[in-house]
């Protein structure tokens, strides 16, 4: 593990609860780890499992999804729909060898700035223990077994009639 490993956590926060909680944490000057990169969505129900996998594939060490508490969704029940796909997604991600701690879903309401701080710090600490996921680097490593140099020095030259 590299020294001073600073995990990158891609966070999807719903506009009405968790994003607002993060704003509240800011207004209240609650300090937490600078590890999150937040994508604002209107509702956690917008979070497509493709986004989560894309984040991992592009170098996220963890993905955090924050939504409203059950029953509190600004859109009535978007968070339940997220919950259903999240329950399946975490099984899938686990079967593909990504530690479950790297994918986290939390209900954080607009008034829970403190909870947001705690969740980010906790997740950062957990991922620091796990070390980097570094999928882009792994993809590159996997592809070192290809033989472009041996078999094909001019791979891109034949432009297939285009």
């Amino acid at each position, binding site marked *: 593990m590299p020294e001073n490993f600073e995990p990158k956590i891609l966070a999807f926060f719903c506009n009405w609860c968790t994003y607002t909680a993060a704003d509240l944490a800011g*207004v209240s*000057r609650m300090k937490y780890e600078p590890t999150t990169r937040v994508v604002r969505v209107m509702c956690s129900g917008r979070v497509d499992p493709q986004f989560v996998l894309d*984040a991992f594939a592009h170098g996220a060490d963890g993905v955090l999804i924050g939504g409203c508490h059950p029953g509190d969704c600004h859109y*009535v029940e978007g968070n339940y729909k997220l919950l259903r796909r999240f329950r399946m997604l975490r099984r899938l991600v686990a079967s593909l060898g990504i530690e479950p701690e790297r994918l986290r879903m939390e209900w954080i309401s607009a008034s829970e700035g403190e909870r947001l701080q705690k969740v980010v710090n906790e997740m950062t600490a957990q991922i620091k223990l796990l070390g980097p996921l570094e999928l882009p680097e792994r993809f590159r490593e996997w592809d070192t077994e290809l033989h472009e140099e041996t078999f094909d020095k001019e791979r891109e030259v034949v432009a297939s009639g285009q």
Partner: protein
Amino acid sequence: MDDKTIGNGSEEVRIGFFICHCGSNIAGTIDVEAVADYVRTLPNVVVSSDYKYTCSVAGQDMIVEDILKYKLNRVVVAACSPLLHEKTFRAATQRGGINPFFFHMVNIREHGSWVHQDRALATQKAMDMARGAIARVKFHKALEKRREPVRQSVLVVGGGIAGIHAALTMANAGKKVYLVEREPTIGGHMAMFDKTFPTLDCAACILTPKMSEVGSHPNIVLWSYSEVTEIKGYVGNYDVTVKRKPRYIKEDLCVGCLDCIDHCVFKTGNTDDEFNQNLSKRKPVYIPFAQAVPRLVAIDPAACTHLNGGKCEQSCATACDRQAIDFEQKETFEHIGVGAVIVATGFKPFDAHRKPLYGYGRFPDVYTALEVERLVCSSGPTGGDVVLKDGSKPKSVGIIHCVGSRDHQTNRWCSRVCCMYSLKLAHLLKEHTDAEIYNFYIDIRTPGKGYEEFYERLQEEGNHFIRGRVGDITDVPIIPEEEGRMIVRVEDSLAGFVRRIPVDMVVLATGLEPREDASEIRRRFNISCSSEGFFLERHPKLAPVSTTTDGVFLAGCCQGPKDIPDTVAQAGAAAAESLVLLDVGYVEMEPMTAFVTEKYCSGCKTCLPLCPFSAISRDEEKGVAVINPVLCKGCGTCVAACPSGAITQNLFEDRQIFAEIEELLVHA
């Protein structure tokens, strides 16, 4: 797709990036110049600059000028939260001559400088976030806000002083008001008070004229003994269902002569009188109090013999010469359409049983403050005679402050009104009984006009003030003077020792809590709660009566403990906000709705069960899903679930989010 020509056409994407110092709020932690320098190197970025206060007029003008000067067609601002200034900068973008949705905002203050300390890491994060925005804004499209007309009526939920004042304000402005109150009468808690602090006005004298005005106002439809059961729609166009519980009285026939009450087979009350805090009894057919509005009796189905299947001669019905009593009445539902909603559902007094050491329910002469309000009131259960349960007058009274407030075992918050009402009750009790009055307080909080002066007056009147949280109330005497009395045990933190004060009567200054069903109400109106359970305002300072749901406003103690003047002021503010909405006459709908691209839709029906607003239907002829943009609220749940990628959400398109994700993760 060619990076250079993404967007609404084939024009080259030209992005302007503006980063705000916010004085030292951002620049104190983030190296804004370094971020600006970095962003300047990113593709499509034409200009990148930093400014002291970007939200200022000069800052906005800079954006407008740069749009013109550099022929920008995209703008990214890194500053505070978009929830604060997104509108400001969208407007500036529009003033520069481009569609306001060619704008994106990066939150580097609330999510950056204010929560991080390491300058290098906070700067790194700001760079990452800026890069994400730059990548996403390339894919933004021009969007138009849709306008919808606003219905010229308002729903006020709750008929306490907050609801009454809001309803009257709206009605006097010429708007149609539906006031829905759960109890048989409006008036709320204020109607139960004897006097109001610090002026000692008679509560009924100032409240009941307003109540009658509500009852007779041509613009107000008052539905008491009713509850809102469902609310659908959106700002300006809410569809509301109101359940009208049966009061077993034909409202249009009852004139409030109260003959039925006199003729009830029960000659005296047979059930606890809630209005008098259960200190007296009332009959099954009753009116909550003399000045109740509407002046209509109600029959309590729990107490009425006939309604419980018992044998009763129904003398109340025969006594009514207007045949207004109708035992067959069933609950009915009213359906109304309103433009705005004011939620004024009030509070619940703290349940004193939760502090068992104070003996409430165990010692007969331990009262809550609201009970004492009724006791000192001349229309109360004793006609204003303050007497103990044994009929004697108390010679000394202890008032315990902060019961269920400022207490980590119960509620942490200060209920704001208890100090003042305790002082008021101290004054009234002294006036009525000439007893020695002991106030046991933690701090005396009197922040209001004339409040501190009132406190001084009480001190001059010879009341005792003992600083200390009371440990318990005991009836075990250790000296003869304590025999047969209650002893308040308290550490006097000014004197520095534990005292035992024998008293005949104890008043518990119970705090204010959210109502038991606050959570249910909150869900019904789609608003949020703060962690203690009071309804959450949109912004604690700048939008104190708005909620996160447009067109739903808050008034009174449902938002947090407050006294009558503050409640009335807030109710007026909620009415003013509603009036703005109604008088503008239209609402602009955010364009972030979803739409189906027909050629990609297989009609698989995956999206149909997902929309909580029933905005998605199926065109059976074409075999595709159709989203009604008027009903769509833009959550994006269907977009995520569409297995064909056939649904797009404006401003949250897949390609925008993918671009954002992927660029956020590239380390600058």
